[in-house]
């Protein structure tokens, strides 16, 4: 559809969550904003292929996610200071204890495989349905569900269970599914 003023406003309204998604994925504020900028340019360049009435945020997230994927492959040999850069992007510095807890969480999140991290963020933070998350990642709904479950169980093992290695993955997954009520 053509780039109407309404569509511009709608795209602009998605920017805060696009930035949050980009920072959660990359752990690097500067790189995240470059990703968002490129996402916006690509989206507007291809606005004719956007179907009016379809899910605009999901369309934008798909573009960002694919850009991040190709960017990631390009840069995977570079050494990154993910934590330091992320902390700089925060406007309000959390109190000391909360800050430590936050750093621990961020470090654990970065340890997840990329597939699991993006699934968890889309469902657990961005608030997409499993169906939308599956469309964004180009995989089956069941795949997204199992990635989210594995991400949750791995995070709980990393953050809250001593001797995580002794805690079998199957047992963890079962427990997580039980904890969610199915």
């Amino acid at each position, binding site marked *: 559809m*053509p*780039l109407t003023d309404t569509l*511009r406003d709608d*795209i*602009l309204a998605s*920017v*805060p*969550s696009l*930035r*949050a*998604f980009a*920072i*959660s994925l990359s752990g690097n504020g500067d790189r995240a*904003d470059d990703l*968002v*900028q*490129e996402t*916006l*340019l*690509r*989206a*507007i*360049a*291809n*606005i*004719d292929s956007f179907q009016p009435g379809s899910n605009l945020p999901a369309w934008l997230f798909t573009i960002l996610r694919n850009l991040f994927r190709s960017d990631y492959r*390009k840069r995977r040999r570079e050494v990154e200071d993910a934590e330091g850069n992320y902390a700089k*992007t*925060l*406007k*309000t510095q959390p109190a000391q204890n909360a800050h430590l*807890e*936050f750093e621990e*969480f*961020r470090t654990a*999140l970065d340890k997840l495989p990329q597939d699991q991290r993006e699934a*968890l*963020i889309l469902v*657990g*933070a*961005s608030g997409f349905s499993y169906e939308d998350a599956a469309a964004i990642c180009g995989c089956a709904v069941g795949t997204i569900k199992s990635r989210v479950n594995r991400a*949750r169980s791995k*995070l*709980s093992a990393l*953050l*809250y269970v001593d001797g995580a290695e002794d805690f079998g993955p199957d047992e963890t997954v*079962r*427990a*997580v*599914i*039980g*904890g*969610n009520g199915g």
Partner: protein
Amino acid sequence: MKEVKKQGGLNAEIQSRIGHQLRAMYDDVVRQGVPDRFAELIRKLDGPEAAAAAAAQIDDKDGRD
């Protein structure tokens, strides 16, 4: 199933903490709103052609680095 039920309490609590931390991290960025550079960018672009040209410039720059 009994085994699952036994672990459910602790696990539900851990999962709720993880969910809370994840959203806290995410919402902290969402609350920063729209940085000026993005508002200007979207206002400036006349349409698809201008956006494609700007995207191509970024690709050129990446290629040189």
